[in-house]
């Protein structure tokens, strides 16, 4: 299963080589050209196969390879490691966690003080993330340095696995934001499409949409679609307020977020395609978050852009959950919509 391989691969922002390797192998046979740029973006080109015009649309479809994670910033005398967060991580999810450090995946744990020793009034407060350290079992700095180097990146030790084999076909894994998008993009590369497809597996999205920005400058596309694993807040609520997205209700289309306003032609193309093909889809019902589209749509003279996402519960926490139905419907929707781009954008 591709999602499993991609999800389990390592790729904290700035150090995407692990996941890039997996992706490169997965796409090699479908692409006409593959390159890696100065920021580590994997840019895959597949010439239009079914275009009926001389100048097929240059379409950039991006999904970011990087994931949030940790980086080792120093060594303590007792053998523990100081660390920083790469990308936005809720400090509360770091406590009582196993991490894997560096290319050799040295295991470590992030502990906290025993509840018995915490005064009653402090128990309701979140643990101060700045004071946490990683314990790899080393007893002094020198032995820690034998296993780990300054600047080593650490990932959460979470393994992909299917949850209940029910209606949702739910699966659990690490970094579905945005390995879900990467999986969709690999599937799209297998399709015969009427556009010149630039499939960009981007780097450094989680630290500021940096990979997509330079990739879009290089590709200079006519239009772009960013694929994401997006926020889902569908836990039971007493109020009739937005869940942002809901698992099992199909791909989520962004109308606007902090980073961009979606191109209305692309939004219409997606919603009308979904309707015509009977594919479920939903809007991302909050103008929250930012995606690679925020960087891409401002490249050079501007690029009409939209974001389509697989709803993922618990993103930016170690283990996220998605529905394989949503994943497959996202592939179908994108493939069907791109097939309608033969004559360019309406």
């Amino acid at each position, binding site marked *: 299963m591709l999602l499993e391989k991609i999800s389990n691969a390592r790729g904290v922002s700035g150090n995407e080589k692990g996941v890039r390797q997996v992706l490169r192998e997965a796409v090699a046979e479908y692409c006409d050209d593959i390159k890696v740029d100065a920021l580590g973006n994997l840019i895959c080109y597949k010439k239009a196969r079914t275009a009926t015009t001389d100048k097929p649309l240059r379409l950039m479809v991006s999904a970011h390879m990087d994931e949030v994670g940790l980086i080792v910033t120093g060594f303590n005398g007792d053998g523990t490691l100081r660390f920083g967060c790469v990308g936005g991580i809720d400090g509360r999810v770091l406590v009582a966690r196993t991490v894997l450090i560096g290319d050799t995946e040295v295991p470590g744990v992030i502990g906290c003080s025993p509840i018995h020793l915490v005064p009653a009034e402090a128990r309701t407060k979140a643990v101060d993330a700045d004071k946490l350290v990683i314990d790899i079992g080393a007893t002094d700095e020198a032995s820690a340095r034998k296993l780990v180097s300054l600047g080593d990146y650490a990932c959460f030790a979470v393994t992909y696995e299917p949850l209940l084999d029910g209606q949702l076909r739910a699966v659990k894994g690490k970094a579905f934001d945005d390995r879900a998008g990467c999986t969709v993009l690999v599937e799209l590369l297998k399709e015969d499409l009427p556009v010149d497809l630039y499939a960009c597996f981007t780097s450094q999205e989680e630290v500021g949409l940096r990979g997509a920005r330079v990739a879009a400058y290089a590709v200079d596309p006519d239009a772009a679609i960013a694929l994401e694993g997006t926020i889902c807040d569908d836990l039971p609520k007493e109020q009739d307020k937005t869940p942002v997205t809901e698992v099992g209700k199909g791909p989520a289309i962004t*109308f606007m977020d902090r980073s961009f306003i979606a191109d209305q032609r692309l939004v219409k193309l997606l919603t009308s395609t979904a309707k015509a093909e009977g594919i479920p889809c939903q809007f991302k019902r909050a*103008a929250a978050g930012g995606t690679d589209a925020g960087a891409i749509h401002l490249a050079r*003279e501007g690029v009409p852009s939209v974001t389509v996402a697989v709803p993922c519960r618990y993103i930016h926490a170690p283990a996220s959950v998605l529905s394989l139905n949503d994943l497959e419907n996202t592939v179908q929707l994108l493939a069907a919509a791109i097939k309608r781009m033969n004559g360019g954008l309406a």
Partner: protein
Amino acid sequence: MKEMIKELVSAYGPSGNEGQVRAIIESLAVKATDDIRTDSMGNLIVLKKGTGGGKRVMVAAHMDEIGLVVSYIDKNGFARVNPVGGVRIPSIMGTLARFADGTVATINREKAMTKGNEVATWDEIFLDFGVDSAEDCPVGIGDMACLDCAYADLGKRLVGKAMDDRISCAVELQALLEMGESPNDIYFVFTVQEEVGTRGAMVSAFGVEPDLGIAIDVTLSGDTPEDDPFAVVLGKGPAIKVMDSGSIAHPGVKNWMIKGAQEMELPYQLEVLKFGGTDARAIQMSRGGVPSGCISVPTRYVHTSVEMVDMDDVENSVKLLKGLLSKPIAF
């Protein structure tokens, strides 16, 4: 000019939905030139070709205004919204939201009777369309609204929504229409999506690739009761920007503007704003950098539906812009 201002500020055009404003501007701009194009993001780029030997100048005023976007519709047909641009909640309470097709809704907060004196959060704001179910709600997710217009002509001063930045669109248009011969190729650009981060100016500046950038935008006015100290006031002329948090005007461009105003004997003020940013930033940072400055129209109550400008300032801004651009430019 007042008629044009009224028409422009009354038009609907939150960021990303500038089509109605663009249509009005285009219909007026064609009287001056037929070299008009709209780029992929929706910026309207109007070229007034020069007689030769001058500079390639980009003048930018933004068409978009702040607004609201529908993010969720509950089962009873009430809509939840997110802000588009820098909307302050207290200043929208008690106004109407207006959508592209003219649909209006009231803007309300939860628990208005008990918490009405507290500032609401966006989670507590909702729109009421006068319907009872989600099925009857006349708008969809992603639809945007502007604040409804409360236009008033107070004689010397005008009040309305979206003076930010349609007043500058009017200044640009008027300068374009009155413009005689000039050695300079002047790109009058009416930009989109300024309120969400000068996005339209960024891509249009890349396309135009100018030698000089001038943004026209509103600034604040420091002359209302117990206001924070701010040296710019209503009625004392256009403000020549020195700095805001988005950009520092090119010193040469700033001095060229000052000298121009002095030579034309036009009143002007100098502006140092502690926050904010304009399209000048986007143009300045384009490609390898562009010398840029900004002419500001002093405006009271910016980002409300009762923004107030002074007609003398407006007319002097037109004169300043026109005068600066009609001669060879040296800075």
